[in-house]
């Protein structure tokens, strides 16, 4: 090769590198712009998050949409609506049988295709009739009588009756999602075609609330018997499953004969688009109408796009730190207290949740019955050092914190530097979701950062405080707490009941098996003018009445 040739090649390569750099700079510019926009969105979110009260509500006007039209519950008059609606999902559907999966992405579907006996009204906080028109209890919450709605049709044309309720509850045995519910029931009996009697194993005043959960949806006996694969998807909801491909999409079509009335569109398709940016671009492009769980860093892009709305709501999922109370060194209560007072929660919220969260001040769901604001652990390094000296007089404590990555890893990293200030060394143990779930259930961890969505009823806290429960990541074993839970769940005097729940929260606050961190705000990116989404703090929203304006 001649010298000239070398020079030309060098120039060419330099040109390519410069072009690449410029492209990179351009991308970076976009990104920094996006970040700035996201920060603006975050500010709005942080400002508005303080307004949250009892039931979740959609925050029209948040994140730059000042006209208050975000997620209106009824379609505006005279506006043509889209017939075919598509939602881009971060997670996929793995089944069309509600007894085999109970999580955000599946609960969207169950709420659309099926009905529960009773319904929880997010706006009023009351339990309302759904498939049951009225209900009563006997024996202090041990027996429940449900009077069923007459004339309700399943998607297959069959009439809904009491025997379907009995069939559904009997079918729950041994299923992945509903076995827990099954174990609480002693017997279910069809008194007549429109009356069901349920006898519980133990009195439970929360039972009507538990009957509002998607796991309690009623299936058609005939449909499941005729076709055990597709039959479980046959419900009484305003949408019915048209087609489903595992891990790809689920298409629903409107059920015109629904007792709830016909939906506002003809089809509703769940599309699995796991990559955050691709899902958002699909929304911007018009390939999807709803972008579920947009990435925090991309919220600004939605806010800035005149064709999109950002629906923001107060999330009911608590991010917390759990100490394995059965294992060293986390079984040392003074060490746990030292850590609780050494953590700077404001910084954690600002960095890990980008400000889009509300501080958790008690280990209890903010929308859960019996919630008490205990003020949380304010950072106090002197107090932290004092507890640390009691726990480790000669210092040198080391703590493993297990995390699954993402924002929880960021939390662990922040804690690592904050705890270093009082002399505690934190080792971050990063595992994938499956690994973290199993090791923490088996109690192999020292501590972990985890999350849980609290339901509305007080006894929901049982699953995270009961010894032996898979979600009791602290392996906390307190007979006092269990006694209080048992008393509360059948206590008919409301003031007394609330006092029991207060005592439980105070116990957890005092012994620190868990440090509640924050409730992250929830977001949904939608086409401008989209509405009808019934927002749940648990993120298990109801899209049954969704509408999207036509182009």
């Amino acid at each position, binding site marked *: 090769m001649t010298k000239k040739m070398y020079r030309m090649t060098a120039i060419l390569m330099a040109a390519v590198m410069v072009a690449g750099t410029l492209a990179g700079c351009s991308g970076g510019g976009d990104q920094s712009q996006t970040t700035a926009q996201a920060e603006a969105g975050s500010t709005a979110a942080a400002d508005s998050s303080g307004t949250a009260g009892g039931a979740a509500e959609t925050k029209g006007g948040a994140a730059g949409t000042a006209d208050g039209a975000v997620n209106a519950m009824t379609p505006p008059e005279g506006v043509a609506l889209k017939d075919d609606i598509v939602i881009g999902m971060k997670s996929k559907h793995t089944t069309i049988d509600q007894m085999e999966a*109970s999580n955000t992405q599946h609960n969207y579907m169950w709420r659309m295709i099926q009905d529960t006996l009773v319904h929880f009204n997010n706006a009023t906080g009351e339990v309302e009739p759904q498939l049951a028109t009225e209900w009563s209890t006997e024996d202090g919450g041990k027996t429940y009588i449900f009077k069923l709605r007459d004339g309700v049709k399943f998607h297959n044309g069959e009439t809904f009756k009491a025997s379907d309720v009995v069939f559904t509850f009997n079918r729950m045995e041994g299923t992945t999602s509903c076995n*827990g519910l099954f*174990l609480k029931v002693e017997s279910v009996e069809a008194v007549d075609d429109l009356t069901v009697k349920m006898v519980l194993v133990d009195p439970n005043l929360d039972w009507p609330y538990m009957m509002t959960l998607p796991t309690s949806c009623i299936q058609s006996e005939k449909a499941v018997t005729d076709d055990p694969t597709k039959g479980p998807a046959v419900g009484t909801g305003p949408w019915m499953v048209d087609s489903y491909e*595992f891990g790809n999409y689920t298409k629903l079509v409107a059920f015109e004969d629904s007792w709830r009335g016909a939906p506002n569109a003809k089809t509703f398709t769940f599309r699995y688009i796991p990559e955050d940016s691709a899902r958002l671009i699909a929304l911007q492009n018009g390939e999807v109408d709803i972008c579920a769980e947009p990435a925090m860093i991309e919220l600004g892009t939605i806010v800035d796009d005149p064709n999109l709305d950002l629906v923001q709501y107060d999330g009911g999922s608590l991010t917390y730190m759990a100490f394995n109370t059965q294992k060293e060194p986390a079984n040392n209560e003074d060490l746990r207290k030292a850590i609780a007072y050494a953590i700077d929660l404001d910084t954690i919220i600002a960095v890990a949740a980008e400000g889009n969260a509300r501080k958790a001040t008690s280990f209890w769901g903010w929308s859960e019955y019996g919630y008490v604001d205990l003020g949380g652990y304010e950072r106090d390094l002197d107090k932290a050092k004092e507890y640390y000296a009691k726990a480790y007089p000669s210092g040198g404590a080391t703590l493993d914190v297990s995390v699954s990555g993402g924002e929880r890893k960021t939390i662990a990293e922040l804690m690592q530097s904050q705890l270093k200030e009082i002399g505690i060394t934190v080792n971050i143990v990063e595992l994938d979701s499956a690994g973290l779930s199993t090791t923490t259930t088996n109690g192999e961890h020292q501590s972990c950062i985890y999350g849980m969505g609290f339901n509305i009823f007080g006894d929901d806290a049982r699953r995270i405080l009961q010894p032996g429960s898979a979600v009791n990541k602290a392996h906390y074993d307190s007979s006092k707490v269990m006694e209080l839970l048992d008393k509360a769940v059948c206590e008919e005097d409301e003031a007394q009941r609330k006092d029991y729940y207060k005592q439980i929260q105070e116990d957890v606050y005092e012994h620190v098996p868990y440090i509640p961190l924050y409730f992250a705000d929830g977001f949904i990116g939608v086409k401008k003018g989209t509405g009808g989404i019934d927002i749940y703090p648990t993120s298990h929203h109801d899209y049954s009445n969704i509408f999207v304006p036509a182009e």
Partner: protein
Amino acid sequence: MHRYIIKRLFLMIPVIIGVSFLVFFIMDMAPGDAVDLMAPEGATAEDLDAIRHELGLDQPVVIRYVKYMGGMLHGDMGVSYVSKTDVFDTYMEKLPATIKLSFASILVSVLLSVPLGIYSATKQGTLQDNISMVLAMIGLSMPNFWLGLLLIIAFSLKLHMFPSGGDQTLSSIVLPALTIGTGLMATLTRTTRSSMLDVLKQEYLRTARAKGIPEKIVVMSHALRNALIPIITIIGTQLAGVLGGSVLTETVFAWPGVGRLIVDSLNMRDTPLVTGSIIMTTILLSIVLLLVDLLYAVVDPRIKAQYITKRGKKKHG
């Protein structure tokens, strides 16, 4: 030839046993099992045990493996822990999308690389040669994940030419195929170039030129055919690779293929689905590689003659 094919097919058996053994035992050793992920939040230890028993996960791994392989012998690849569907059916549901994307990607790669490699070889040491090589290297250097997003932004978001993902329309395949194809380009371009350079130095081509045959015919007809063996090898290997699933590209483009299926089921610790999918992919790859070997005989008569000679020797010997 038939004997050779049968021998190769039989060789797949130990490969399948080895692969399934490794996958099964590695899955067992990894922390976490499907039950924890499948169980609802409120599940108690008893609930978990009930699910574990139902799935047979309370049995030792060796027994589970023997049972699984016993089922395999009867054509039963098991049922997915998560979806409760037949593993074979689930795999076959995803396979067409992967085959479609694989062939489209290989087509992109061949259409870009082979002409570029030939051109580069005929212009050896020139600026054009260097530009070709730089272009090929750029294709290799760009991570699929990043390139995929760039293509989506450019051709989907800005120009509205193609959908950003999914497998709904024919045009959906363009961007993912371009992403994978450009990634495969560098190896194929360089192989084509070096193979062509070897052949172009051969004496018989000098003779052809001396006879006055036009250079285009010398290169495209005489040289290229003899340079094809390494090129076919690379194409075959690349095809086998993409048939195994292009996880990142399938994720970015929400392409419902085998790669994403395997990774998703790995994350869910869905052992039957992971093992079944990997066994099916192994069979598929073995068949593709066998076809590539057979293609050598079509391209090169000397190799065909070897197959025939071996068979003749065995008959007489």
